[in-house]
Every structure is written in C-alpha cells, then in structure tokens.
C-alpha cells in the first residue's frame, strides 16, 4: 500500500510537470493579455485532476501493456517467418485503427460540408454522407498501405529517406492536379490519422521487428512507421478528390 501511494504520487508529479506549461500559458494570457478572470474555476480544477490521473494511468498502461504487446507480436511474427501474415497484420492494424478514429470522422464530415458548399457534390445529405464515408475508407486504406510499406522497409532494410523523399515528390505532383478544395484537408489528414493508442503500438512493433531481424538496427530501422502513416493519407486523399471531382 505504501508502495502504491509512493508510486501514484510519483506518477502524478510526472504528469503535473508535463502539463505545467499549458497551465502557465493559459494563465498568463488570461490575466495579462485578455485581462479577464478564469470562468468556472471548480470545473477546471476538477478536470485538471482527471487529466493528471488519466495521463499517469495511460503512461503506466503503455509500459506494462501496449509496448510489451507490440514487441511480443513482432517477435512472434519474426519467429514464425511468414511475410504474408505479417503484412496482413500490418495492413489490418493500420486500417482498423484509422477507420473509426474520431478526429478523422470529424474532418471527413467537414470536408463533405466544404465540397457541398463549393457545389462540387450533388445536393442533398445522401451525397455528403457518401463522400465523407468514401474519404474515411480512403484514409484508412492509405494508413494500412503505409504500415505495410513501413514493415517491408524494416524487413528489407531499405533506407527510409529515399522512400519518404520520393513520397514528398509524389505529394507535390499530385497537388498540381488536385482540386483546391481538397488540398488543405489532404495535408492535414496526414497529421490526424495517428492516434494516441496507435502510435505506441506501432512504434513498439517497428522496434520489435528491427530488434529481432538480424542486421537491423532498432534506432535506424525501428522508427519510421508513423512517418509513412502521415505521408500516404495526403496522396490518397488528393487522389480521392481527383477521382470524385476530376483533375483541376
């Protein structure tokens, strides 16, 4: 029990340190720049406490849950030595964690509104719904594809920079052809696809693979999966825009 309390205090202190800066920035701007008192102080204090406990639990859960699972899966796949199933798992992981991502659903709905306002879609709720759904599937496919490419890279030992820079060049080429209304959303969609649960799991898997395959260095080869998952949605979403609206 004493140990537990000691552990909890320690974790809460860490979480508090992580959040201190946010509190300082908000307080300084509220008092010095906007010059208004902070509303609902008790709500904020209560919420702040939840944030700290939540962050502490999450970090602990990472260390005893998500990281070990990701690494163990990677070892098991490496031992079983079946490239097909590993890639199938990689695709499934990318696709399934993205398709239901709340941030993505919000952006897809917003994108449908924009397209509808610009009269790019047939009028009516139905066409907006279909468009938003199509975008979600597109982004989920792109993330699945990204994890597959990323895992292949780790296995084959391809240097990451050529793939990523090649990807950037592709982004630029597709941008030239893509309709204006889709570009901002496409660029942002790269950043929002990787959620708080996916990132640790995918990172642990990459490092696990790079550790268990002979000749790979976990530092050089283990990271990079997230990078692909932030790059491919841009290309796929713009391609989706071109498919739906035609070339600019």
């Amino acid at each position, binding site marked *: 029990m004493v140990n537990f309390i000691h552990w909890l205090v320690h974790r809460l202190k860490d979480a508090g340190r992580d959040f201190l800066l946010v509190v300082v920035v908000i307080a300084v701007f509220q008092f010095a720049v906007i010059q208004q008192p902070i509303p609902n102080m008790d709500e*904020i204090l209560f919420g702040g406490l939840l944030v700290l406990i939540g962050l502490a639990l999450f970090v602990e859960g990472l260390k005893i849950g998500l990281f070990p699972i990701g690494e163990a899966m990677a070892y098991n796949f490496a031992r079983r030595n079946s490239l097909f199933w590993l890639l199938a798992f990689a695709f*499934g992981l990318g696709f*399934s964690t993205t398709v239901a991502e709340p941030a993505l659903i919000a952006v897809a709905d917003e994108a449908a509104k924009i397209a509808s306002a610009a009269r790019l879609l047939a009028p009516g709720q139905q066409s907006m719904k279909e468009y938003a759904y199509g975008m979600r599937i597109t982004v989920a496919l792109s993330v699945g594809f990204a994890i597959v490419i990323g895992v292949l890279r780790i296995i084959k030992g391809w240097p990451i920079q050529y793939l990523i820079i090649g990807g950037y060049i592709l982004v630029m080429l597709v941008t030239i052809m893509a309709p204006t209304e889709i570009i901002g959303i496409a660029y942002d969609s790269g950043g929002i696809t990787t959620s708080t649960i996916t990132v640790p799991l995918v990172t642990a898997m990459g490092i696990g693979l790079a550790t268990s395959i002979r000749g790979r260095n976990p530092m050089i080869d283990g990271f990079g999966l997230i990078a692909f998952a932030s790059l491919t949605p841009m290309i796929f979403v713009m391609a989706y825009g071109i498919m739906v609206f035609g070339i600019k």
Partner: protein
Amino acid sequence: MNTINLLIDTFLNTIIDIAPIVILIVFFQIFILKNTLPRPKRLILGIFFVIIGITLFLVGLEKALFPIGKLMATQLSAPEFLFGTKEVPLSSNWTAYGWLYLFGALIGFATTIAEPALIAVAFKAHQVSHGLISEIHLRLAVALGVAIGIALGCFRIVTGTSLVLYIVVGYGIVIIQTWFAPKSIISLAYDSGGVTTSTVTVPLVTALGIGLSTTVPGRNPSIDGFGLIAFASLFPIITVMGYAQLAAWKVRNKKITSHNL
C-alpha cells in the same frame, strides 16, 4: 452534458477505439501465430490502464482545457480584441496580429510537451538509443517545431499566401537536412512529425485556425482554416534533425578541443 454522462460516453468511445486492435491481436495470436503472449494478466491490466487513462484524460481535457483554450483562441482572434472595433480596419496588416502568433506558438509548444503519444515515442527513443537521446530534449525539440509551425501557419492565414508554397520550401529543407543529419536520427525525426498532432493539440489548433480565418477579411474558414496541422507536422522534422545535428556538432567540437589539450 453532465460529468457522469461524459465519462460513460468517453469510456464507450475509447472501448470502440481499441476494440479492433484487441480483436486483431487476439485473432492473429490464436489462429495464425498459435501461441500465447507472455504474462497475459499483466498485459490485460496494461490495456485496462490505457482505456481508463485515456477516458479520464479526455474528460479532463473537455472539462478543463478545451473550453478555456478554445474561448481564448476565439477571443484573441476577434476584431474587438485586436483592433477594439467590430470590423477589421482596412489599414491593418499582418503585424496587427502579433499576440496571436505568440499565443499560437506558446500553446502549440505547451500542448506538445503534454501530448501522450509523444511521451510514448520519447520514452522508446531513450530506451532504444541506450540513453543517448534524452526524453525531455527530444520533446522540447518537437515542441519547438510545433511552435514555429503554428506561428508561421497563423501568419500564412493572415497574409493569405499559398499553403503549397510553404510546404514545398519545408520539404526542401527536410531533404537538404537529411543529407547532413546523423543517420540514426532520420527515421525518428520523420516519425516525430506524425506523433505531435494528437489529442491535446489538434482541437485547440483547429479552433485557432477557424477563429483566425473567420476574422481576417477575404479568408474562407472552410478552406483557409486548414493547414495548421500540416505545418505542425512538418516543422518538428526540421527541429529534431537540427537537434541531432547540434548534438553531433557539440561532440565533434569537444573531441577537437580535447585533442588540442
């Protein structure tokens, strides 16, 4: 919505979020890999911690940070605050939005430090590099990148310059830096672009982008409001590689000095 409802709602959403992952892992473990994971009880406890942790974290953010953060973003970008009038004066130029760039940079910096996904990646990077990469240094480097990205992104919305132009220049810098940066940092740097924009940062930055593009005359919030996230994902790549280059340069310098002695 009251707190209890919000808690239950968030809890269920988190479960829905994590369910496909759990199903996928269990399916592959039982049918394809046909073995068990080590210490299953501990792993289940860990998943349980993650679900409860994210639930409390999100509810807490919804109660404490998001209302005031979004309100501030809106207030700071409103013409009443910036110019003291209901309308944006015709004579105003990009310098009139000074407080907003500062707020964007600072809030981007602060929320990035608190971002759980980045905490996870920094922890792993520290472990894998055998302590060579310091967790807090990496997080500071990423946060600096986000700060620059958001401030510049706000400037772009105010001036109405093309998003593509900035992205092309940014990628150009990344490509050049990649040639010179230490090999071992490259994949981590590329990753740090994607992990920065997550739970804490995105809602606040989005509010800032929409508020700003509503205020500035001639901007369309549904088109110009986008792009801040893209900036916040691009510049950390540059700062993280910069951090590694600086560290490598320091080590080299030290060696030269000790040779001279």
